[in-house]
């Protein structure tokens, strides 16, 4: 049997890679990809805790489903904003989007 620590370490590593992607990527779409990785890491944790600590209740799965809904909403609005920005300013490099800097 696999100890819970393996799953948790995997999720932590996935989260960190996602965080790196969010901070380091230039492209706005790539930043959203990083956010997706982080949300997936969260979901791995939720399902793992459900399986190891409370398999008789459904709490972990309900939380994970809500995370799915949140991820979908985030992607929908985020990508729509990126497309809108691209149409208006012809760039999607996050560093160049500095209209609100001052």
């Amino acid at each position, binding site marked *: 049997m696999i100890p819970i620590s393996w799953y948790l370490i995997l999720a*932590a590593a996935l989260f960190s890679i996602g965080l790196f992607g969010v901070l380091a990527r230039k492209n706005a779409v790539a930043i959203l990809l990083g956010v997706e990785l982080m949300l997936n890491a969260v979901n791995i944790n939720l399902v793992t805790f459900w399986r190891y600590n409370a398999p008789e209740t459904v709490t972990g799965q309900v939380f994970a489903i809500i995370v799915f809904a949140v991820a979908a909403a985030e992607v929908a609005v985020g990508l729509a904003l990126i497309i809108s920005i691209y149409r208006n300013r012809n760039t999607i490099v996050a560093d160049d989007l500095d209209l609100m800097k001052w």
Partner: protein
Amino acid sequence: MQITQILFLIFAAIILGSAFKVVTTKKMIHAAFWLIVTLFGVAALYAMLNAGFMAMVQIVVYVGAIAILFIFAIMLTRKELLDSAAPLNKNWGVAALFGLLSFGGLYTLLRNWEGFSNKASALSTDVDMITELGTALVTPNAYLLPFEVASVLLLAALIGAVYVANEAKSD
């Protein structure tokens, strides 16, 4: 080493390797396809955790819808903008440091937790997880509010995204 452990390590290697490609690949469309590999790996993990419903939802929602949306959005923006420049910004060293720090911090946090080496308890076979889930979602004392709020959230996301994309279309 057991078969399940070897399987886990294979899936973990797939997930982490493809996740690393997602954040470093230069071509955006390749990054999106690497994300799909990661998502499949995570779905396999859910199946290993006896959460079949979650595995299927992962594929239906993430691979079937979110990844497609990403690919559409990438194709809607022009290639030169996406693939010409270096993929990482000049602060990538700091970002890597942050990533390592978060991993180290999470690891030490988990180390000090007493349930760190828990073993899975046996799953009772007579409970149908999906029925339980459905009951929990519509019982007022359980998760009725999140269930309805989720639909409002999706409605808000739909209206917001359609509104924003409509602006883009009218140009």
